[in-house]
């Protein structure tokens, strides 16, 4: 498998949509006795990653597989995360689910796990090039969806701005690029600013204030995550421009939904972390059971606005159903 091409989760051909798992690979398989799964994510300081863990746990509970879920102490603690992952390998878990801090910081795990004959599933966000299995959404698509909203809903075009996540992080780069490329190609829009927000609410607030001051005729912001988007919303409100400026975030955390319902945040691209967690664990366990899955299992996402927020925020099963409908409809 050393001849595996470096993975690009957004363009990999060997992929399957999550909705097809059951159709193509049958019902959930029987697992060897005592199967247990280890998972390590980026950080628990962000709701997204906690929700992912909930997904692991809920499926794990349902199928009787204990899941240990750990996370680094902070976003950016790359070696700490590696230490955690190495601990999981040595402790004899049957499968690992990892959401690496960066594209490479968990690389040694791939080799150690291979030696220990433990499958590893790369779940979302940063992408390990040698990963044999990836479950997650198409990062670039986040930005594309928001850009499409602008193209459809703001036919006259106008000035838009991007607030980026931490410089150099895969998800931030992809999301930004998807948005920027799509909206620029539409012709009528101008990306007047693409400034760093560092995943931080306060930084984004200040950045948005400055951008608005320079471009009071701005029609929208796209932020690489919801925390930053919520900071931008406050800046837009403080500038008194809430009726003119649309603000979009990414992730679909509960605060974002609340803000959307309150008519403040225009929308977010929800990537359904709980469902993603379930799909990831399901895929991982199918691997344990010996099934040969495609390299990438794509998980759903949807652009949430006030109009459809209720559809995507109900109980787990309802959302699953709605998303399956979306998938069937080819969204």
């Amino acid at each position: 498998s050393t001849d595996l091409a470096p993975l690009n989760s957004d363009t990999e051909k060997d992929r399957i949509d999550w909705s097809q798992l059951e159709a193509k690979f049958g019902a959930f398989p029987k697992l060897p006795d005592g199967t247990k799964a280890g998972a390590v994510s980026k950080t628990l300081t962000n709701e997204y990653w906690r929700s992912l863990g909930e997904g692991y746990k809920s499926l794990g509970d349902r199928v009787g597989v204990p899941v240990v879920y750990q996370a680094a102490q902070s976003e950016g603690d790359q070696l700490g995360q590696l230490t955690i992952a190495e601990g999981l390998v040595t402790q004899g878990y049957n499968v690992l689910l990892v959401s690496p801090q960066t594209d490479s910081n968990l690389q040694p795990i791939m080799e150690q796990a291979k030696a220990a004959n433990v499958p590893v599933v790369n779940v979302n966000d940063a992408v390990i090039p040698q990963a044999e299995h990836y479950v997650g959404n198409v990062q670039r698509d986040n930005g594309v969806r928001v850009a499409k909203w602008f193209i459809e809903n703001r036919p006259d075009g106008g000035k838009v701005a991007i607030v980026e996540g931490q410089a150099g992080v895969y998800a931030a780069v992809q999301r930004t690029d998807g948005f920027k490329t799509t909206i620029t190609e539409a012709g009528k829009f101008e990306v007047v600013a693409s400034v760093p927000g560092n995943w931080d609410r306060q930084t984004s607030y200040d950045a948005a204030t400055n951008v608005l001051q320079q471009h009071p005729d701005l029609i929208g912001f796209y932020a690489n995550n919801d925390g930053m988007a919520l900071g931008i919303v406050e800046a837009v409100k403080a500038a008194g421009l809430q009726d003119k400026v649309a603000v979009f975030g990414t992730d679909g955390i509960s605060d974002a939904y609340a803000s959307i319902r309150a008519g403040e945040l225009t929308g977010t691209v929800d990537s359904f972390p709980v469902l993603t967690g379930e799909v990831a664990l399901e895929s991982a366990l199918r691997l344990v059971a010996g099934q040969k899955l495609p390299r990438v299992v794509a998980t759903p996402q949807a652009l949430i606005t006030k109009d459809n927020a209720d559809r995507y925020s109900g109980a787990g099963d309802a959302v699953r159903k709605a998303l399956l409908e979306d998938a069937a409809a080819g969204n």
Partner: protein
Amino acid sequence: MTDVTEHTAARPRAEFLHRFSLRDAGTLIGLVVILAVFGALVPGFFAERNLINILQQSSINACLALGMTLVIISGGIDLSVGPTAALSAVISASMLVAGVPFPLAIAAGFAIGLVCGLLNGVLVAYVGLQPFIVTLGTLSTYRALALIYTGGNPVLGLPAGFRAIFNGSLFGLPLAVIIVAVVALIAWIILKKTPFGEYLLAVGGNEEAAYIAGVPIARTKIAAYMISGLLAALAAQILIGRLGAAEPILGNLWELDAIAAAAIGGASLMGGKGSVVGTILGAVILGTMRNGLTLMNVQSFYQLLATGLIILAAMLIDRVTRGRG
């Protein structure tokens, strides 16, 4: 005789320099240069609205940096300001959301800041540990407490009334700016006019001499850390008022900005030296830079580069003016 006249003549000038030192003038020159550069490059940079923006965006860092300056003068350092602010923010916020009256919730936030500072101070002053390490330890500890308390979630939905307190304007200036200006004035008075200010300078300048002279070393240091904690709490209140939410991860890397502002303003990390005016100017320099670079839509990598270079340049200007001073 000649001698005496000379002394008398020299007095007023010395007095003036004493008040607005050459060192502060150096920082001011730095600020003016940066303003001029951005003014030339960015249309509308000098718009009143933008200048107010700069002040507002500098106010939180200035608030922290004032506390940091006092701690640095006392010969210490406080790396834990960010987590202290976070802890104070989430506790105030959760009380506010639970319907506790504003004054009580704010007071609780301030109390948290004071307690965090007290712990730092006691470990430094009574136990005799190195300030850098103590506050490195409490940096993790306080952050962890804030995360555990909230389970990692932001506290949302702060009452509008509370937000108005820190979000309003007076005479066209944001209240946050006015609050920090008042804090700066108080800090200036403390440093220049009160025994405590003298004690700070003495403890940082020569601890043994201060001890022998009867300066209450431990109490002075503890007070410095408590003020730093209190100002971190104040910064937290201002911020959550502005954002309408309190996050346990708030205040990440604040300590570096605060230290940079104090150092650009002339504080020596060896202790015994520092200036309130300089610190404020230092904070405004950093704020101006961020504002200007954003307005110029400089890409984030280059913003980072500019930040680093500006810090170095400011210190070089400092060095040159000190050389002349």
